[in-house]
C-alpha cells in the first residue's frame, strides 16, 4: 500500500434512480393535469392520514416515542463506523457474508455475481427501496436475469411497465380497471374474463406468485433495520410475500443502505411502535420477520448482505442535512404533504418522492446534478411533514438549508433552475431589490410613498390580474389587490410623529405574566365553545 497525503476526502455522490430529470415545477404541471392520478392520490392519502391520526392519538407517549426514535438515529449516525463493523462481525459470525458497495453500480454488480454463482435466470424479490434506488431490476434484465416483484402493488407496477409513485403504495396512481387490464394482458393462463373485483385480482396475483415462490432458488430483499448487536435483520410487511421470499429460497441476498443500522434489539422496540402506525396506520403490521444468520436445514443456507453507501456518506457530512438519513421510509410525510397530494410521486423523479425525496435525492445524488436543485423548492414549507415524521426529521429546515446551497451553487454556475438564466436574473434582481428596501426603514418609507402610483396599473377593476415574468405564476391563479393609498409607516409618521425613544423605569416581567395566565387558553377555548360551538365541520 502506498502512502498518500491525507487531505479532505472527496465527496462521493451516488448513482442510480436518485435524480430529477426535469425541473419539478414543469413535471408537476403535467402531472396536475392527470385527473385520475389526482383523484386516486387525494382519496388514498386522506384515508391513510385519518387512519394514522387515529392510531397515533390513542398513544399517550407518542411524542416521547418520536424523541426516542430521533435520538437513537442520532446516536447511530454519530457512531456509524463502529456500528457497521459490529454488524459485519456478528452477521459473519453467524454464517452470513457481508459485501460493501460504494455505490449503486457496485451493489448491482455484486448481486449479479452472486446470482450467477447459483446458475439461475429468475429471482424473486421483496418490495425494496434500496433496489429501486440502484435500478436492480433493469440491470439484471440487461444481463438476462428476470427479477419477479412479489409485492402486489410492485407486481402491478412491474407488469404495467411503469414506475412506482409512492414508496408504500407504489401503484397508488392505478385504479382497479387499469389493474385488471394489466393482469389480463400480462399474466399467463389468467382467466380472460377476470373482473376488477379486488378479491379476484388478488387471487390472480396469488396464482402467479405461488409458483414462483416454490420454484425460484434465489430471492432478493431490502431490509427495514439491521441490528448491530446481533447481526439480525428484519422486515415489516403486510402481505406475507416477504416472509415467503425470506424463508423459501436457498440463497437470500439483502440490499441494505448503511444508515439502516440499529445498535441493539431493545432499540427495535421503539421503531416497531413508530413504523406501522406511521406507515399503514395500523397498530402492528401483519408480518414481522427477523433473521439471524444461517440455521442448518431451516431457511436460506446461503446468506448475503450488500451494505451500500451510494451518497449516504456525503449526506452524513452535512450537519443540517444528515438527519435525512434517519428516515425509516414510513411515507407519513408524503401522505400529509399538500404538494405530493397534488403533484404525485413521479414529479420528484427519484425513487424517493414527497418531502423526504425533496431532501434526500439532492443529498444522495448531488444537488448540482440534473434538476435535483429544483426539489428543495417543491414545498410551501407548511411543516405538515415534520409534524408527522416519526423520527422528527425537520424537513422544512433541511429544505431551506438546501435552498441556500442551491442558490449558492446557481450563483456560482450562473444558472438557475436548469439553465433558465432569465429566471435566475429575475429572481436575483427581485431579491436584491427587496434586500435594498428591507435593510433601510427610510428607503422603505420612500418606496411605499410610491404605492399610489402602483394603483395606476390596477385600473378600474381595482386589482391586478396579469403580471409579467416569474411572478406571472401568481396572476395565473389569483388577482392582486390594489395597493393602499399610503403605507402604514407613512401614515403613522404623519399622524403620530416620532414618539420619545426611551422611557425610564422597569420593564414588565413578561414571564411572570405568562405564568399567571397559564389557564387562560383553556378558559378562552371554553368560552368560544359556549359562544360559537363547532357542531361539525362543514362537509
Amino acid at each position, binding site marked *: 500500500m502506498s502512502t498518500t497525503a491525507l487531505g479532505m476526502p472527496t465527496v462521493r455522490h451516488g448513482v442510480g434512480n436518485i435524480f430529477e430529470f426535469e425541473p419539478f415545477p414543469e413535471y408537476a404541471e403535467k402531472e396536475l393535469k392527470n385527473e385520475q392520478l389526482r383523484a386516486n392520490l387525494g382519496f388514498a392519502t386522506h384515508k391513510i392520514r385519518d387512519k394514522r391520526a387515529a392510531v397515533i392519538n390513542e398513544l399517550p407517549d407518542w411524542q416521547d416515542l418520536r424523541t426516542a426514535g430521533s435520538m437513537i438515529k442520532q446516536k447511530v449516525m454519530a457512531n456509524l463506523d463502529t456500528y457497521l463493523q459490529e454488524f459485519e462481525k456478528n452477521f459473519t459470525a453467524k454464517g452470513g457474508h457481508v459485501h460493501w458497495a460504494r455505490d449503486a453500480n457496485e451493489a448491482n454488480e455484486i448481486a449479479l455475481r452472486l446470482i450467477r454463482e447459483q446458475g439461475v435466470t429468475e429471482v424473486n424479490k421483496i418490495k425494496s427501496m434500496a433496489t429501486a434506488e440502484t435500478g436492480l431490476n433493469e440491470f439484471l434484465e440487461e444481463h438476462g436475469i428476470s427479477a419477479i416483484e412479489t409485492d402486489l402493488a410492485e407486481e402491478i407496477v412491474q407488469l404495467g411497465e411503469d414506475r412506482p409513485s409512492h414508496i408504500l403504495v407504489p401503484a397508488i396512481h392505478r385504479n382497479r380497471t387499469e389493474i385488471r387490464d394489466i393482469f389480463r394482458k400480462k399474466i399467463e393462463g389468467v382467466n380472460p374474463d377476470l373482473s376488477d373485483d379486488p378479491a379476484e385480482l388478488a387471487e390472480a396475483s396469488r396464482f402467479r406468485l405461488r409458483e414462483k415462490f416454490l420454484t425460484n432458488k434465489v430471492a432478493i430483499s431490502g431490509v427495514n433495520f439491521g441490528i448491530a448487536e446481533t447481526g439480525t435483520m428484519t422486515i415489516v410487511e403486510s402481505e406475507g410475500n416477504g416472509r415467503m421470499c425470506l424463508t423459501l429460497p436457498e440463497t437470500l441476498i439483502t440490499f441494505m443502505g448503511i444508515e439502516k443500522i440499529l445498535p441493539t434489539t431493545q432499540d427495535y422496540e421503539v421503531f416497531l411502535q413508530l413504523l406501522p402506525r406511521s406507515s399503514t396506520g395500523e397498530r402492528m403490521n401483519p408480518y414481522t420477520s427477523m433473521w439471524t444468520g444461517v440455521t442448518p436445514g431451516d431457511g436460506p443456507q446461503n446468506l448475503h448482505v450488500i451494505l451500500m453507501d451510494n451518497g449516504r456518506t456525503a449526506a452524513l457530512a452535512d450537519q443540517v442535512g444528515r438527519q435525512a438519513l434517519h428516515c425509516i421510509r414510513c411515507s407519513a410525510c408524503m401522505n400529509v404533504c*399538500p404538494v405530493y397530494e397534488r403533484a404525485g410521486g413521479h414529479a420528484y423523479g427519484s425513487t424517493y418522492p414527497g418531502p423526504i425525496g425533496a431532501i434526500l435525492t439532492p443529498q444522495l445524488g448531488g444537488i448540482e446534478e440534473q434538476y435535483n436543485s429544483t426539489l428543495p423548492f417543491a414545498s410551501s414549507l407548511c411543516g405538515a411533514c415534520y409534524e408527522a415524521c416519526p423520527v422528527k426529521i425537520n424537513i422544512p429546515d433541511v429544505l431551506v438549508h438546501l435552498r441556500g446551497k442551491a442558490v449558492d451553487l446557481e450563483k456560482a454556475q450562473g444558472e438557475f433552475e436548469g439553465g433558465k438564466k432569465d429566471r435566475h436574473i429575475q429572481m436575483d434582481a427581485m431579491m436584491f431589490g427587496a434586500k435594498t428596501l428591507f*435593510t433601510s426603514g427610510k428607503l422603505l418609507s420612500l418606496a411605499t410613498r410610491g404605492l399610489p402610483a402602483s394603483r395606476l396599473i390596477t385600473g378600474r377593476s381595482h386589482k391586478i390580474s396579469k403580471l409579467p415574468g416569474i411572478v406571472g405564476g401568481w396572476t395565473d391563479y389569483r388577482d392582486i389587490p390594489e395597493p393602499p393609498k399610503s403605507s402604514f409607516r407613512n401614515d403613522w409618521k404623519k399622524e403620530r410623529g416620532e414618539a420619545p*425613544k426611551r422611557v425610564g423605569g422597569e420593564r414588565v416581567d413578561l414571564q411572570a405574566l405568562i405564568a399567571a395566565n397559564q389557564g387562560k387558553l383553556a378558559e378562552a377555548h371554553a368560552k368560544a365553545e359556549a359562544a360559537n360551538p363547532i357542531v361539525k365541520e362543514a362537509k
Partner: protein
Amino acid sequence: MRVALFSTCIVDAMYPRVAQATVEILERLGHEVVFPQGQTCCSQMHANSGYFDDAYQVVKTHVQAFEEWDFDAIVAPSGSCVASLGHQQPMLAERAGDSAIAKSAADLAARSFELSQFLIDVCGITNAAEQLGSYFPGSVTYHSSCHGMRLLGLGSRQEDLIRTVEGLEYTRIEGLDQCCGFGGTFSFKNADTSGAMVADKVANIEKTGASVCTGGDASCLMNIGGALSRKGSPVQTVHFAEILASTKEKPLQVSGPVSITAGGK
C-alpha cells in the same frame, strides 16, 4: 405596558388597516404603542428563498431597529413572521458569523408575540366581546396559517378569540390545517401546484357558506383573497385583528373586492 408594533412588511405596504386594527386593540387595553421606524421585514422572504447572505442583512436591520427602542414587548399581526424571528433569525446571524446579532435576535424574539398569543397569554383575554368590545355581525370562517400553527404552536388561540366576538356566526372549514398554497416564493416558482392548493382551499371556504374568511396572516389571506377574486366569489378576506377591532360604535365595513376598511379609521 409599552408595546412596539412590528407591522410586518406585507401589512405595512399592502394592508395598513391590519396594523391600524392591531394598534386599536392594544390601545383599547391601555397599552402604549410605539412604531420603531427603522423596521422592515422579518427576513423570511430571503431566507426561505435560499438567499441567506441577504437575509442576514435584513435580520441585522430588524435587530438594530428594535434595539434602539425601549419597550416591554413586540407584537405583530402575523404568526409566520413572529415564528421566523425565533426560528430563523438567530440561525441566519450565526451562519454569517455574527453571534452578537444572533444573541440580540434571540432576546428580541423572546419578547415578541403574535397578536392572539399576546392577548391570551400576556393580557389574559378570554372573551373578545366582553373584554375588547368586539362586535361583528356576519358569518365567518377561518384559515389557520401553517407557520403560526406548527412553528409557533398557536393552537386554537386565534379561532377561540374569533368565536367569542359578539354577533359573529362561525363555521369551521373542512381541512382547517391544510396549507393554502402560499409559501412565499413557492406561489410563483411552483405556480401550478400552489394554484391547485389554493383552489381546494377556496372550494372548502365556499362550502361553509360564510361571507368572510378570516385568518392571522395577511400573506395567506392575500393568496386566498386573490383566488376568491379571480373566481368571482363574493367571499371576502379579513384579518382577524380587523374583526377584533370592530365594535358596535365603529363596525368593520366589508364591502367591495378590495376597499375593506377597518373600524375606527
